[in-house]
């Protein structure tokens, strides 16, 4: 069997929905599903999840579970707003990074130095971050006109944007160039136009912050898999007492991992603020830290996998902003997907699961048939529901770092 067949065999549960979505998008009323606008929004919404997921990667690769990502992200949002209001957006990014790293340090002190249960510490950090965000906001912006206890003033100033020249119509020296992808998208050729829409969406009007964030993927791969430091960090997550015996400073590696993790979560928060409403808002992170963690699981603890997971969740998030009709179209996708699943289950003589998925599919079909839109309240949780569904079908074969979640004390055999 060649590589492609193996890939298709393993990932068909992910590939089929994508194909289904593309086919549905050929219909006029669901065409929003694959426009460049949707993909552009999807990229913008994926990046915070990607950064949070990479944050989770650095922490868990050194053996520390980081449920506190959400809290570190909240700190990122507030510190970014603070730095941004005082000194402009680029300083905001630095502040956000530092704020996240600071909370990473707290998590590291609790879990590494004091061996507190990782999830307990993470939960405590999330609670602390919500309170701290609000408290800091009141303290820092008390005298500003357009601020309240749950919102900061606006960060003035822009982070530049760029469009790829020759392919997506970006400018060179002020004169426009060809827009190959844009015109392809308008042709309405099956598949080709959808793919052109995807590429056009992610190559036009992209902010420098997005580019920096995307560079974190090769950056993480390089740091973790191509440098001695990365090797030491990963070894600590697999077999800490073994690393210790080889002279690796286990505590230092774990501290490094968790602080980088916090910094990346902080960066995710910065992105949410600067590429979003340009203010800090309470509840702005909306569970994206946890979705980032889910993308880490989906991506099986690898940077590129995390990117795919984040892209998927970002896409779901983008649809809710774009159009309610598109989400309604997803109902039929779910129905068809459940239909395929039922066939598979019955083929594998797994009657009970077959009946279950068949019933679920039928329910979705009835729902689709008897409505024209989805209640707006349901649209809000599309990304969260997607997360659950995707994890249900993808999370079977994890290869997590061996000692992740286990406390390690110097000199004790783990």
């Amino acid at each position: 069997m060649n590589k492609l067949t193996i890939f298709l065999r393993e990932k068909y549960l992910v590939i089929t929905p994508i194909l289904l979505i593309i086919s549905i998008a050929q219909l006029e009323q669901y065409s929003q599903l694959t426009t460049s606008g949707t993909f552009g929004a999807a990229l913008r919404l994926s990046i915070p999840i990607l950064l949070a997921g990479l944050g989770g990667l650095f922490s868990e690769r050194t053996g520390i579970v980081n449920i506190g990502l959400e809290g570190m992200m909240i700190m990122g949002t507030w510190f970014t707003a603070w730095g941004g209001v005082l000194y402009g957006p680029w300083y905001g990014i630095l502040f956000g990074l530092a704020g996240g790293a600071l909370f990473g340090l707290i998590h590291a002190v609790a879990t590494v130095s004091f061996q507190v249960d990782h999830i307990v510490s993470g939960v405590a950090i999330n609670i602390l971050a919500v309170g701290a965000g609000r408290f800091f906001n009141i303290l820092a912006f008390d005298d500003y006109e357009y601020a309240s206890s749950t919102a900061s003033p606006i960060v003035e100033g822009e982070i530049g944007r760029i469009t790829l020249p020759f392919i997506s119509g970006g400018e060179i020296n002020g004169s426009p160039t060809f827009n190959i992808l844009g015109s392809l998208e308008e042709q309405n050729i099956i598949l080709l136009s959808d793919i052109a829409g995807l590429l056009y969406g992610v190559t036009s009007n992209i902010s420098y912050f997005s580019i920096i964030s995307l560079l974190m993927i090769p950056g993480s791969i390089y740091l973790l898999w191509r440098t001695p430091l990365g090797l030491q960090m990963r070894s600590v997550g697999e077999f800490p007492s073994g690393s210790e015996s080889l002279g690796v400073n286990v505590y230092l590696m774990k501290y490094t991992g968790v602080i980088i993790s916090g910094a990346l979560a902080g960066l995710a928060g910065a992105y949410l603020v600067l590429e979003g409403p340009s203010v800090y808002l309470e509840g702005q992170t909306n569970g994206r830290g946890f979705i980032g963690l889910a993308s880490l699981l989906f991506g099986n603890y690898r940077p590129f996998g995390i990117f795919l997971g984040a892209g998927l969740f970002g896409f779901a998030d983008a649809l809710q902003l774009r159009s309610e009709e598109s989400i309604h179209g997803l109902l039929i996708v779910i129905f068809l997907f459940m239909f395929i699943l039922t066939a598979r289950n019955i083929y594998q003589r797994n009657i009970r699961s077959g009946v279950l998925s068949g019933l679920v599919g039928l329910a979705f079909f009835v729902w689709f048939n008897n409505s024209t839109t989805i209640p707006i309240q349901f649209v809000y949780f599309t990304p969260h529901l997607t997360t659950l569904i995707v994890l249900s079908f993808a999370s079977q074969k994890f290869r997590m770092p061996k000692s992740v979640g286990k406390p390690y004390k110097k000199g004790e055999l783990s």
Partner: protein
Amino acid sequence: MNLRYRLISLSAPILALSLSVLLTSLILTAIGKDPIETFVLMYDYGTTGKSLVSVFNRFIPLYISAIAVAVGFKMGLFNIGVEGQYLLSALLAAAIGASFSVSRPLHILLIMLIATAISSVWGAIAGYLKVNRGIHEVISTIMLNYIGTGIIAYLLGQVFNDEDAANLIPQTTPLPETGQIPSLNNLLNIEDLPSLHGFLPIAIFLGLIYYFLIWKTTLGYNLRITGQNPTAAKFSGVDPKRLTMLAMIISGGFAGLVGMGPLLSYHHQYSIDFPAGIGFAGIGVALLGRNHPVGMAFGAILFAFLERSSQILDLRDVPKEIETMMSAFILLIVVVFYEVIRRYIVTQQIKEASRQVDD
């Protein structure tokens, strides 16, 4: 564990509290407020009769929420979804409870039963996803919280909204008299104070049930040994999958009763004003009280007291959010201290044992 170790364990929350007070004082000084004056102000306001009633009313759901979380904690299961479980079940119980009428104790009992059942099912989803699909319960319960919030918003706005209500906020039809629990004020001769919720005895009773469940039944024993040593538990014949399912169902069941205190004895209907956030607060109480019914009672009282007494601060130009910071400090410091002291006791016990062997 002998008495000496018990006393040492007890020092952790006290030390954590002191250190948090110290940290909070530093912050207060940094923002130019006198910490002693602030704490005295909080204490004076928090101990008025009116405030104490409010503290006990807040204690009720907080304590039950902590119990719900603790059932999971006992076996190392993190039910972060108490928040969604209690809100969703409170809404449905309020809506269904208002649609029929039977005599009083039965009506109340039925409403509580409905809430427990719905909340258990909602909790069981996370159990199912963990057991059959390998999704960690922290992620699934968090996602279910968001999904629950959406469902609540939809049901409250589109399905159960009481169109006859005078004000325009979305709300369910009020429960009839037979579905309301009277206040305790007459019983305790405190008519001049605000209403003390009649759910208080039930909350204390639930604490007792929790104690018996965990320490006096086989199920509770299995939960505890699984929490302490999953491998040993497995070899002693515990089915971890079945136990996870059961723990999520029971935890969800307790969570369903969190909203019943406010619903049956005060609000009598579900509206957007219904108290939220108690599910998350309960996690803190369970951590502080170390999953022990008495410890959690103290924890719930403490957090309820801090919350109430901080209300005065805004009037004196101190941000009342200092209380959130203080609660979070207590939480973070106490989990560190518990771990430090646990390790200290273990080393002491090892030393003691080796001394006995030497003799």
